[in-house]
């Protein structure tokens, strides 16, 4: 029922390092006809449905199929849920930004938010043998996207979470 598009995993690409270099290059050399979308939204959980709808719009436009659509919706929602829950502690007076950049080759989602205390390296890796009610969001993101990168700006407390799905590889 679902056509899984070939997304490039480490296995198919030699080493993690090489895959990441390739992804960096893809993002830096975006073609002139890439589509950019920026959203500035409130940090409340109603926003999540809007964001998924916008993702649907972008994915349908690229004609990517149900599996990729679901992966990108899922990763993006997990990322934004964490902003609302952990960074903003459900204070919906806070807002955050989302950027979506798409070309024939990559689908990039970036979430920008404020969290001066956030240390990405401290995100725990879940033990899937222990059944718990939480701790699976980042695990899911890392497993379904081809590239995930948290970067923080120390002075401003601004965090950028970049998530990339490769659609097809040039050359």
């Amino acid at each position: 029922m679902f056509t899984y598009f070939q997304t490039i995993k480490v296995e198919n690409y030699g080493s993690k390092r090489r895959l990441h270099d390739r992804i960096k290059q893809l993002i830096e050399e975006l073609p002139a006809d890439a589509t950019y979308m920026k959203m500035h939204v409130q940090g409340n959980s109603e926003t999540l449905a809007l964001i998924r709808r916008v993702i649907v719009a972008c994915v349908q436009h690229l004609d990517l199929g149900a599996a990729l659509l679901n992966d990108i919706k899922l990763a993006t929602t997990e990322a934004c849920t964490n902003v609302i829950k952990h960074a903003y502690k459900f204070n919906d007076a806070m807002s955050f930004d989302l950027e979506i950049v798409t070309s024939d080759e990559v689908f990039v989602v970036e979430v920008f938010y404020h969290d001066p205390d956030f240390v990405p390296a401290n995100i725990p890796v879940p033990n899937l043998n222990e059944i718990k009610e939480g701790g699976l969001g980042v695990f899911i993101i890392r497993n379904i996207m081809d590239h995930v990168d948290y970067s923080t700006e120390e002075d401003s407390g601004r965090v950028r979470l970049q998530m990339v799905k490769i659609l097809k590889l040039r050359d």
Partner: protein
Amino acid sequence: MFKIECKVDAEKKIKIFYVDGELDIQSAKTLKSEVMDLIESTGWTYELNMDQVAYLDSSGLGMLVYLKKEITRHNGKLRIVKLNEPVLNVFKLTKLDDFFEIS
């Protein structure tokens, strides 16, 4: 748009919840409180019919883990049926397909 309907079969001690919509952190809260309100003291089966759920994330999963523990505490059973492929994939990815009774 998120909707839940509940059918009760008192004879067989089954409550079937028809869930309709996307299960994220917002709707998961709704579903959790709806089910919690209807948990009987002992020996019932609770079936979640997910036929109309095309999206589920870790917040939805966390809520299901919570419900399963609560229902077990009340000597009940939780059954999850009619999972769509994208939803089933999230169970598999997190290895929760074994923990839950799904079909």
